[in-house]
């Protein structure tokens, strides 16, 4: 088969990103325009402000990506686009751009689920082997996805309330760390000791997670210490919190590996950058003799590369859309 170059566009949250990937595995060029500094002053992503930046950035990011790849649009074989889930106003900018390019250059338009993108970030590192368990952990998602073959997704469990990244950011706020606080907790957790007692959530027979109880426990603990006039030992609290949060993930992953005959575990999403989780997943998979893939840091945050990579396998699976494609703020991976 002839080589296939896919242009991937991602704009589901606060990053405008465009990338060109060859055959779903080889990154040719990627540009990411992050708005993190814009949203910092508001303590989180403001959807309307994010949309306003996407529309300003979109053609600039497209142009820089093509220049970096030293390619023209005529050399692109298909356009892959994150259609959802995400912030609707943000998604729409990428969507309209992708649809317009598909019309102008008469190229196939490939809709990609954001989580499929995070999973396929791994195919840029090494080929996926099946059956595969994808541990999707980010600010908006905490899911276990079973894949028996390429582009066959079966969600076997997920969070019943908060996403793990969301929980990290909220706990960070409670102990006075600046947004985005998740990575700061991970860093602090390397320095402290596990001295605070926190409950391990949802020790049941499902593949589901729950983080709101853990979050409340940290808030209450911090509140009680404050009332007693005691200072919170931030590093220790970060260590204790991280230990419990990571354990609640690994215990369910262990169960899935043992029950479903998993050969390859991949960790995907923004929280895949978390050192505590990476280390724990490494020792778990070594113990059980399963292959582990964790994408390099640059593929953990939102990017067009993973969308273009997933787009290739989606295309091989016949997932092509007409120009009526719309964005969806929520959608199940299937």
């Amino acid at each position: 088969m002839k080589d296939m170059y896919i242009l991937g566009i991602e704009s589901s949250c606060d990053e405008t990103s465009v990338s060109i990937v060859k055959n779903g595995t080889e990154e040719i060029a990627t540009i990411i325009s992050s708005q993190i500094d814009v949203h910092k002053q508001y303590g989180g992503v403001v959807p309307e402000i994010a949309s306003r930046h996407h529309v300003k950035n979109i053609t600039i990011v497209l142009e820089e990506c093509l220049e970096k790849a030293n390619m023209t649009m005529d050399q692109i074989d298909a356009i892959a686009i994150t259609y959802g889930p995400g912030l609707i106003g943000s998604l729409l900018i990428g969507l309209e751009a992708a649809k317009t390019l598909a019309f102008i250059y008469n190229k196939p338009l490939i809709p990609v689920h954001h989580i499929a993108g995070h999973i396929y970030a791994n195919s840029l590192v090494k080929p996926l082997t099946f059956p595969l368990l994808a541990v999707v952990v980010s600010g908006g998602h905490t899911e276990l996805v079973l894949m028996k073959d390429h582009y066959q997704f079966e969600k076997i469990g997920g969070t019943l309330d908060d996403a793990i990244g969301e929980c990290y950011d909220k706990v960070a706020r409670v102990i006075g760390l600046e947004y985005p606080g998740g990575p700061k907790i991970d860093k602090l957790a390397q320095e402290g000791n596990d001295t605070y007692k926190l409950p391990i959530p949802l020790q049941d027979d499902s593949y589901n997670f729950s983080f709101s109880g853990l979050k409340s426990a940290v808030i209450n603990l911090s509140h009680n210490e404050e009332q007693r006039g005691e200072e919170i030992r931030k590093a220790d609290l970060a260590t204790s919190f991280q230990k419990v949060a990571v354990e609640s993930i690994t215990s369910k992953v262990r169960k899935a590996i043992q029950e479903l005959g998993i050969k390859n575990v991949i960790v995907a999403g923004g929280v895949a950058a978390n050192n505590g989780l990476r280390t724990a997943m490494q020792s778990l998979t070594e113990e059980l003799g399963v292959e582990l893939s964790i994408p390099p840091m640059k593929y953990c945050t939102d990017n067009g590369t993973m969308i273009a990579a997933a787009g290739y396998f989606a295309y091989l699976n016949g997932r092509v859309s007409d120009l009526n494609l719309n964005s969806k703020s929520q959608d199940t991976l299937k």
Partner: protein
Amino acid sequence: MRVLYIDTSSCYLYSAIAEEDKILDSVAEEYGQNLSEVALPRIVEMFNKNNLSPTDVDKIIVVNGPGSFTGIRIGITIAKVYAWSLNIPITTITSLEAMATSSKEEKHHVPMINARRGYVYAAIYDKEGNVIHKPEHLKWDDLKKEIDQLEDKEIISNDEFDWEIEKNPYNPDFSKIINTYKEKESINPHLVNPDYLKLTEAEEKI
């Protein structure tokens, strides 16, 4: 010279393709929530019906606001990506200019869009189209004081308001809009952006 016109700033999709002084095809339909789904397909239908390809356009005129924030961005994104990719000259006009230009009345024109909570997006033009009050996000009470001074005027709007006013509906005159603005100076597609006339709530609070 072929001109593509796009206005998605309201819950209507207004789009047209003109060839010299003739309108080859146009769309003026209410879509509301699924504008993002249908805007491009409707534009593509005009191309297909008239056997035109994307490269057959010599100029794009796109409305950059004021109006629905999400709506404006849909039209602007289509237009700027189109203009950037094929290097086609592009220019922007405001929704209020389009409304005033389409009027058939020999009066002062006051195009007006409901911005809620007692506010409107509006402008005032004299009958030759000269700007008397440039597009602004302002309190209806303040605008009312100003237009009460004008002898002959018409308010143009398709919106409903919480107060009683006499208004004429807006029906775009594509031929007039395109002829008035097709020679307007082109701008770099990267700089074709919405002009919301209003900060976001988060920015206002800071």
